[in-house]
C-alpha cells in the first residue's frame, strides 16, 4: 500500500486540456490525491514551449485531451512528448470511444499510451490507475471495447456524415459514390449495428443517436 502511495507521490503530471473547466477539475482531482501537477496547458504549443524552455518542468506522465481544437491533437502532442522524453507516460483522454470518430485521419497511439474515455472516468481511482500504468509502461493502448471497434473506417465515416445531417446525395458527392450505393451502405451498416428497418422508426435518427453514443455526446 505504501508503495502505491509512494508511486503516486512520484508522479509529476502535465495536463493539457483546452476546456478550462475540465482542466481545472482534472488538476484539482490530481492535487487532491497528492499528485504533483507540474504544468497545466490549454494547447500543444503551450505545453511544448514550457517543456522545452523550462528545464524544471519535467513531467513523467502526461494527461492529454484528444481534441485540442485547431491544430495538433492530443495524439500529435503525445508523439512530440515521446520524442522529447522517450520514457514519459501518456494518457489520452477523450469523449470519443474511438479516435476514428473524430473524422480526422490520426496516427496510431504511441506505445504504452493509455486511452481513457471521459464518460467512463467515474472515479478518480480510474484516472490515477491509468496514470500509474502509463508511467510504468504497463500494457498497450487499449482504445475501446465498444462496438465501434467492429466498424470499418469507411462505416465510421458514413455514420459521421449521417449524424452531420447530410442527405444520401450529399454523402454520395463527398464519398464519390452514387446515392444508391450510399443507401445500400446505410442499410448494411444499420443491419450491422442491429437497427432493423421498420416503418415505425427513423433509421437515420437511430444511426445519429448511435454515433452520438459512441462520441460520448449522449450516454
Amino acid at each position, binding site marked *: 500500500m505504501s508503495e502505491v502511495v509512494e508511486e503516486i507521490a512520484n508522479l509529476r503530471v502535465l495536463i493539457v486540456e483546452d476546456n478550462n473547466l475540465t482542466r481545472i477539475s482534472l488538476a484539482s482531482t490530481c492535487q487532491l490525491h497528492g499528485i504533483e501537477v507540474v504544468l497545466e496547458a490549454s494547447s500543444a*504549443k503551450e505545453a511544448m514551449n514550457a517543456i522545452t524552455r523550462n528545464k524544471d518542468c519535467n513531467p513523467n506522465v502526461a494527461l492529454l485531451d484528444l481534441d485540442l481544437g485547431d491544430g495538433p491533437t492530443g495524439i500529435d502532442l503525445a508523439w512530440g512528448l515521446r*520524442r522529447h522524453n522517450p520514457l514519459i507516460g501518456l494518457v489520452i483522454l477523450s469523449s470519443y470511444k474511438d479516435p476514428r470518430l473524430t473524422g480526422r485521419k490520426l496516427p496510431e497511439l504511441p506505445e504504452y499510451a493509455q486511452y481513457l474515455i471521459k464518460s467512463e472516468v467515474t472515479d478518480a481511482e480510474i484516472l490515477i490507475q491509468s496514470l500509474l500504468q502509463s508511467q510504468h509502461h504497463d500494457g498497450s493502448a487499449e482504445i475501446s471495447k465498444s462496438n465501434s471497434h467492429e466498424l470499418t473506417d469507411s462505416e465510421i465515416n458514413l455514420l459521421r456524415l449521417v449524424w452531420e445531417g447530410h442527405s444520401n446525395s450529399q454523402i454520395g458527392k463527398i464519398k464519390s459514390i452514387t446515392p444508391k450505393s450510399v443507401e445500400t451502405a446505410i442499410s448494411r451498416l444499420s443491419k450491422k449495428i442491429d437497427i432493423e428497418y421498420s416503418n415505425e422508426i427513423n433509421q437515420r435518427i437511430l444511426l445519429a443517436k448511435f454515433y452520438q453514443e459512441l462520441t460520448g455526446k449522449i450516454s
Partner: protein
Amino acid sequence: MIPKARFRFIDYLKSRCRINLRYLGVFFLIGSIPAVLIEKNSISSLRSALLWYATKAIAVLTTYLYWSSFRYLLVNRYRTKIYDLILIGGTGGAIGGLVVHQLASVFSLEHQATLAGRIASASVVGALWLPSMSTANNSLRKFKEQESQIKARLLSQDQLKFKQSMVFQFLTSSFYRSIQQKLSVTALEAREILDRHLSESSSREAVPELVSNIATKTFRDLSHSIKDDMSFAANLGEIEKAIPFWGRLRKFVSFPSALRFNPILEAFPYSLIVSLFCAGYISRNSGLTLTIIIVSVIFISNFGVLKAHAYLSKNSEINLRFLSLSSVLSTAVIPPILLEILDRSQFLGLSFQGSNYYFFSYFILALVMSFLGYVALLIKITFQEMEDSLQSQYREGVDKEKIVNNEIARITSVCAKYIHGNLQSSLVSLSGSLKQAVKNGESARTEEIIDEILHMLQNPELELNRNVDDLYAEVLKKISLWEGLVDIHPEIQIDEHQFSPQTITQVMDCVEEMISNAVRHGKASAIKLSIQRTADGTLVLICIDNGQFDPHPQGGLGFNIYQEASNGDWTISRSPENNLTVVRILINS
C-alpha cells in the same frame, strides 16, 4: 428500351377527334381553293364537282390522319421505330390511293381517278415527312415540363425579392453583423441582470449560480437562435441559384419561338403545298431532264429542312438520320420517278402529258421548304443559345451557392467555437471560481472575478470581431499552433494583396492539411512552407518536409481538400537526392 408500338385506332380517335375536326375543315377549305381555281374548267357538272370534293376530302383526311397518327405514336403515348411508321404510312397511302382510284374508275372518271391516285401518294409523302416536326414538338414539350418543374420550385415574386435582398445582405456581411448584434444584446441583458443582483446585497449570494445559468442557458439559447439563422441562410443558397435561372426562364417563355414550334402552324403550309401539288394538273409529261433538275432542287432544299429538324429534335429517340433520308427520298425522289414510270408504262391508263403545273408546284414547294428550313435553322440557333445561356447561368448559380455555403459554414464554425469554446466555458469556469471564492470568504478575489465576468459580458464579441482577412497573419497563427512539435520555416511572399475569405479558407485548410500530414503520417521534424503569389494571381503553396514518404498514399480527406482548392492542380513527390517530400498546390486567387 423502346416499348413495342401498340397503335389502337379507337384510342387515337378518342384522343384526337376534337382537334382533328377543326383543323381538318381548315385544311380542306384552304387546300381546295387553289385546286378549285385550277380545275374550274374541268368541273362540268354537279356530280363531277361532288366527286372531286369527295376525292379531295379523302385525300386530305388521309394526309391528316397519317400525320396525326404518327404524331400520336411518337409524342403522346407510344414510341415506335421508323420503319414501322414507313410501313403504316406506305400501306395506308397505297390502300387509300387504290380505293379512291377504283371508286373513280367505277364511275368512269379517268381524270378524277388519276387525281385521286396522286393525292393518295402525295398524302403518303406528307405523312412521312411530318413526324420530324412532331419530334421538334417533343423537344418543346420536354422543355416546357422542365420549365414548369422549376417554376413550381420557385416562390412568388415578392418572396423572391425579399430573399434576394437577404442574399445580398448576407453577402455584404450584414448577416454576420446581425449575429454580433445578437451576441451583444444577449450579453447586455445578462449584464443588466447581474448588475441588479450585485446592487442588492440580499441577492448577491445568488450571483455564482446566476453566472452559471447565463453560461449554460442564456448563451445556449443564443447558439440555437444563431443556428436557426444559419439554416435559413443555408436555404438562401438555393434561392440565389434559382434567381438568375428564373429571369432567363421568363425571357424564354415570352420568346416567340415557342409559338413557331407549333407543329400545326408548321405543318399547315406544307400540307397546303402538298394539296396544291396534288390538285394541280400533272397530266402531261415535263420531260426527264426537267424532272431530274426539279428532283435535285427539292432534294437539296428538303435535305436542309430535315437536317434542321433533326437538330431541333435532338432529344428524340428516333433515328433521325434515317428519318431525314427516308423523308427526303419519299418527298422528292419517289413521286416524280413514280409518275415518270407510270406515265411511260401507261399503267392503269394514266397519262401525264406535260404540264407547267408540275414544274411550278414543285418549284413553289421547294421555295416554301427552303423558307421553312431557314426558319427552323433560326429557331435552332436561338434555342441552342438559350440553352447554353441557361446552362451557364445554372453553373454560375452553383458556384455562387458554393461560395455562400462556404461562408455560412465558416461563420457557423467561428460562432460556434467562439460561443461554446470561449464564452460559455470561460463563464462556467469563472462561476466555479466565484462559488469557491464566496465560500472561502475571499472578498477581494470575489470582486476580481465579478469584474472579469462583467468585462467579458461587456465585450462579448471581442474575438469575434476579428475578421479573417489577413492571410499572412492567419498562416503564421496556424503555424504557431504546431510550435514545439515540428520545426516550421515559413516563406510567405504575397505582397499586400487582399484575398477573399474563401481563398483564405482554402489556403488555411491546405496549410493545416500539409502540416498535419507531414507530422502525423510522415513523422517529419522539419517543414519548409512557402506561399507565393505569382503575377497572374495564382497562389503557389509548397510544403517540403523531411518525413517518411508513402509512395502509394491512400487518398483521403486531405487529398480531397487539395483537389478542391486547386481544381486538381496539385502534386506530391519525393526528391530522391535529399529524401524530402514535396507537396505543391496551385490556388487561383
